[in-house]
């Protein structure tokens, strides 16, 4: 008999190797998390650095005389007749108001009157015209109005435009920036929080300073409503049938494989389908949130069905058996007992599906939602029907703005990404909270 000479307190070679492997694995894990976290931090930092300034905007506070002889030739303050004066007629009024303001402040400048006029956004003429047409009695008096400053001037106060870059820039000049700085010193030019970025519609390439997300947010909202109303009931009904009622045979296996497959189909395929069925065959309107919502519904359905089935599967069979044992029908056992217990999982799955749909651009490309849309879409209108008026969506707006020539749109695109990320974060937080609050473990 040999007695064991080894002590458990002394590690032999093999134990050492096993312990070392364990340590290595830990560090691999930490590395993986580190890489992922670094990527996230870099992404967020670059988006925030570029986009945070989109939420602030530079305004000029002007007092604009409204001469009756140019704005209301008829003299009877009739808005219909006054509408014949276009925005091109209002732009000189703004220019003259700024020139007068600069002269009053005794600011010496070599800028021509046209250059001074270029410091004001082209959007300003339109907002002045709207104000006057809405309230014709203003004509003949003086109106105090905060108007947007040109995108280059705005960029100067956000650090995007510098004296050096303005030297080479055909759209502004160091002199214009110097005058703008002097105006800011006396408080005629102010930079403040920019609600218009969230409410205003898109603007053309000449006015990055006026572009906003209003139409895109509305469009996304309408589409999410359509997706929620269609995908949730259809998806849950399909999942309940497949999980609880369908006989297990070849056909149900085939359906199951197909649903898993559909969840992985590239989203642009749904766009092609949407174009063929909803627009060309059913004759629904292109660019409308209804078609967008229907396409995204098709895309979200597999996600919701799979999540719902998983939630139903997680409810222990003993609950069903007890209900059936007490004489409930199959349907009663499902709707009275299983479904309420699975509801948190179903809701989480639905919200994640919605979040996925919210960030989707590719299918919208084919149904005409990647477009320049200025008019706010109404939820219902006589001519266009429910959700039938043209709209865009948040990710589409990001895509559009990154393609624009003016550097001001880089900031806008990053600002739109921040907005989209906030929406997604809120939705995902709600999903996590719901799960924490209601989920039951067995």
């Amino acid at each position, binding site marked *: 008999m040999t007695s064991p000479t080894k002590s458990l307190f002394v590690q032999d070679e093999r134990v050492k190797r096993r312990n070392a492997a364990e340590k290595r694995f830990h560090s691999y894990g930490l590395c993986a998390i580190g890489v992922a976290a670094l990527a996230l931090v870099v992404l967020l930092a670059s988006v925030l650095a570029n986009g945070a300034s989109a939420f602030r905007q530079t305004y000029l506070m002007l007092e604009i005389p409204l001469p009756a002889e140019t704005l209301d030739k008829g003299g009877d303050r009739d808005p219909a007749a006054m*509408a014949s004066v*276009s*925005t*091109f007629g209002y732009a000189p009024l703004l220019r003259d108001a700024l020139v007068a303001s600069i002269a009053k402040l005794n600011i010496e400048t070599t800028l021509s009157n046209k250059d001074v006029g270029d410091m004001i956004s*082209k959007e300003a003429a*339109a907002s002045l*015209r709207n104000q006057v047409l809405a309230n014709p009695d203003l004509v003949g008096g003086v109106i105090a109005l905060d108007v947007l400053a040109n995108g280059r001037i705005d960029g100067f106060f956000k650090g995007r*435009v510098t004296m050096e*870059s*303005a*030297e*080479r*820039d*055909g*759209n502004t000049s160091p002199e214009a920036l110097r005058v703008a700085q002097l105006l800011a010193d006396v408080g005629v030019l102010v930079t403040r929080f920019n609600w218009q970025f969230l409410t205003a519609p898109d*603007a*053309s*390439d*000449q*006015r990055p300073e006026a572009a906003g997300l209003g139409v895109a947010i509305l469009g996304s909202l309408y589409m999410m409503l359509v997706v929620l*109303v*269609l995908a949730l*009931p*259809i998806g*849950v*009904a399909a999942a309940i049938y497949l999980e609880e009622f369908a006989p297990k045979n070849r056909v149900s296996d085939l359906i199951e494989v197909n649903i898993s497959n559909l969840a992985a189909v590239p989203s642009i395929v749904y766009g092609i389908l949407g174009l063929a069925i909803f*627009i*060309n065959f*059913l*004759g*629904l*309107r*292109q*660019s*409308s949130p*209804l078609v967008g919502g229907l396409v995204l519904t098709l895309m979200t359905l597999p996600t919701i069905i799979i999540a719902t089935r998983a939630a139903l599967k997680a409810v222990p069979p003993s609950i069903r058996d007890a209900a059936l044992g007490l004489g409930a029908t199959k349907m009663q056992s499902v709707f009275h007992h299983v479904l309420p217990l699975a509801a948190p999982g179903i809701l989480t799955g639905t919200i994640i599906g919605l979040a996925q749909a919210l960030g989707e651009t590719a299918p919208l*490309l084919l149904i*005409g939602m*990647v*477009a*320049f*849309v*200025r*008019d706010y879409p109404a939820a219902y209108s*006589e*001519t*266009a*029907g*429910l*959700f*039938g*008026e*043209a709209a865009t969506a948040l990710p589409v707006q990001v895509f559009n703005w*990154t*393609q*624009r*020539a*003016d*550097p001001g749109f880089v900031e806008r695109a990053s600002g739109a990404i921040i907005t989209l990320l906030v929406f997604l974060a809120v939705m995902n937080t709600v999903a996590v909270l719901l799960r924490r609050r209601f989920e039951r473990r067995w």
Partner: protein
Amino acid sequence: MSPLNLTASTLAIVAASVTAAAARDNVQVAGSSTVLPYAAIVAEAFGENFDFSTPVVESGGSSAGLKRFCEGVGENTVDIANASRAIKSSELEVCAENGVTDIVEIRIGYDGIVFASDIAGNGFAFTPSDWYMALAAELPVDGAMVANSNSNWNAVNSDFPDQQIQAFIPGTKHGTREVFEEKVLLQGCIDSGAMDAILNLNGGDEDAAEQSCMAVRTDGLSVDIDGDYTETLARIEADANGIGVFGLAFYENNTDRLQVAPMSDVVPNTASIASGEYPVSRPLYFYVKAAHLDVIPGLQEFVSFFVSDEIAGPDGPLAEYGLVSDPELSKTQDAVANRTLLDVM
């Protein structure tokens, strides 16, 4: 939550929108991404100044836009197709097959194509021959076609600095590429005498010679950009040797980051392009369905507004943005007023 109710409500929603799908009240535009900024500027001004809805402008490229334009006549087809080239006869045939026979062609102005590099880099003054010598796939040397061995600009033209050739040109799906091939590469091929040399070599086959002139090297010194000009700009900012092809309007909005190269000693700007001195330019068009003019509210007004002097004229917002206004704008205005139709064979 019975399945029957669901189906019923789904059908109800779809039916409600189908029945209401009649009488669209906004103009629908699709097509070229080059024309898109101009169309957006006009649509915006139109919405501000008229009581009609602001037109919806989609991009996606000239070919895609014309394809949708030719799908047929009716409420659920587009009214206007923007194009950075003239419509092709093959496209007109498709149009005619689908009942789109009455088309008004409207030329809105000219677009210059410029060559620009990073503001901090070397300056260049090109001729078309320089570009041909730099980018051709094969050059005729001593009676044979050999692969282009020029890797630095000073090998192309001894006046140029010793800088690596790195060109970013539009990909083949862009209308701009066609203009680049015809007005720069082919022209350079003829100017440098390479055309004659190639014709001598292949026994006078002109088509083959033109093909050879316009073939771009694929060894990485010339990169096709399938995205838009913002991508080209990003590539140039990342690579100091890079020289890119841009639209004039894009360059004019980024003059603080790009320096433009004169072509044949002419600096591109709206004046030199309008006069025809600057060689690389092309007309921009849009096409409108005559059958829609009296049906879609605001379409006729939008088209007239687009070509009016205050918009498309030399002092209008389009020219300010970089469009070279058409010296024959009044003819276009007449064509719009008279609804002059395009000849369909």
